[in-house]
């Protein structure tokens, strides 16, 4: 065990592993790129419609049920299924099928949380906002969304971490990223490489979690406090 860990440390200290296309910096960068891309696009595709639907309290069970179906789709299957599609569309192998699969992964939690978050906002808050003369849009953006922001941003955080872990599957369809160390190491039964890859992914996941928590703390209290204070002042 100690010997193995020693080999892992040696792997990290080897300068050859820090240069070139298969070096740690490049693979980490590729991984970060796809995580940011997939999470942001998923957020756009999921949060905006979900907020509107939640505001109008339309769709409800049907929509949430349909999105729940997405949750049951195996990421491994989607990454492989996307391949003939992206090749056919001229987008090639590697990045695009992985990106598509990650969208499938990230959209459900963000959609469901945005919908239930906005739909579940305290009716008193909304009544108060209307009472003040806020339009539909103002109410949505000024009251409902900030009130729901904790759950929404929590979902983005959870989704981002899941994307980091699952992006490793991209190595199966010719992409790079940290999954390369896992897949290539497995192919030649080089456990040190696999372990190092796993450590890097776990590390990146923790960093992502930390960053997103900081974002949460930065964005949410302001919104909640402001909305709360305004309503309180107005109500009095």
């Amino acid at each position: 065990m100690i010997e193995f860990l020693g080999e892992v440390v040696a792997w990290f200290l080897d300068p050859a592993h820090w240069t070139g296309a298969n070096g740690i910096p490049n693979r980490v960068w590729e991984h970060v790129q796809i995580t940011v891309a997939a999470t942001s696009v998923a957020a756009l595709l999921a949060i905006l419609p979900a907020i509107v639907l939640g505001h109008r309290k339309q769709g409800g069970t049907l929509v949430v049920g349909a999105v729940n179906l997405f949750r049951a789709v195996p990421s491994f299957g989607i990454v492989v299924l996307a391949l003939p599609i992206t090749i056919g569309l001229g987008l090639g192998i590697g990045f695009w099928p992985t990106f598509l699969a990650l969208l499938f992964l990230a959209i459900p939690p963000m959609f469901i949380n945005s919908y239930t978050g906005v739909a579940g906002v305290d009716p008193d808050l909304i009544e108060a906002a209307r009472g003040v003369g806020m339009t539909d849009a103002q109410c949505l953006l000024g009251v409902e969304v900030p009130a729901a922001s904790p759950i929404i941003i929590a979902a983005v955080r959870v989704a981002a971490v899941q994307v980091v872990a699952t992006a490793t599957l991209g190595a199966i369809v010719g992409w790079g990223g940290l999954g390369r160390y896992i897949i290539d190491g497995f192919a030649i039964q080089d456990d040190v490489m696999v372990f190092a890859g796993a450590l890097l992914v776990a590390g990146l996941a923790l960093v992502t979690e930390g960053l997103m928590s900081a974002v949460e703390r930065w964005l949410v209290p302001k919104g909640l406090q402001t909305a709360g204070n305004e309503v309180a002042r107005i109500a009095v």
Partner: protein
Amino acid sequence: MILAFFSWEWVFDHLDDIWDRTMEHLLLTVIAVFFGFLISFGLSITVLRNRRLFAPITAFTGVLYTIPSLALFALLVPITGLSVLTAEIGLISYTLLILVRNTVAGIDGVPMPVLEAAAGMGYTRRQLLWRVQLPLALPVIIAGVRIAAVTTIGLVTVTALIGQGGLGFFILRGLSLLFSPVGTTQIVVGVVLSVVLALVVDLALVGTQRALTPWAKAKEAV
């Protein structure tokens, strides 16, 4: 190429194989969730007896969860081989976080007055757990089991890479036959049936919960 995507002929020729692999998939899932539940139940009771253990246990199961499944299976292969055991160790590990969290939350969620009333009636600690806390916590616990089951069904596909696989077998086979309808059909079958299996299992669990605790509505997971 996209037009010549699906081959019903392949499906009808392979109904036997499809059934076998689906059953294999279900079996791997059931074993994982069953043992995952036993282990997490034990962990949960431990946590409830000693609160200080909650943070470390959650941290440990949480760390297991962040390890990419591929890596966990890959690292186990030299130790436990291309076996069902390797697949199960990995699959069970991923169920622990959600099951512990939900079991603890479920039992915690039993209202104090109920516990006090039962204690007042002379229930021992053990009777309290089995006759009062668990039945009342069941909806939340089963909500956790549902998510664990659906997650496991997705992960079982990955075990195709270590010689197991269930429906993942078709996905992997399809990967090497990408440009023919035979290949893409297999991938589609693998994905679609995984989803169907997940829905069926989810419904079965909801049904189980209703049967066991008819007084409670199905709860969302924590």
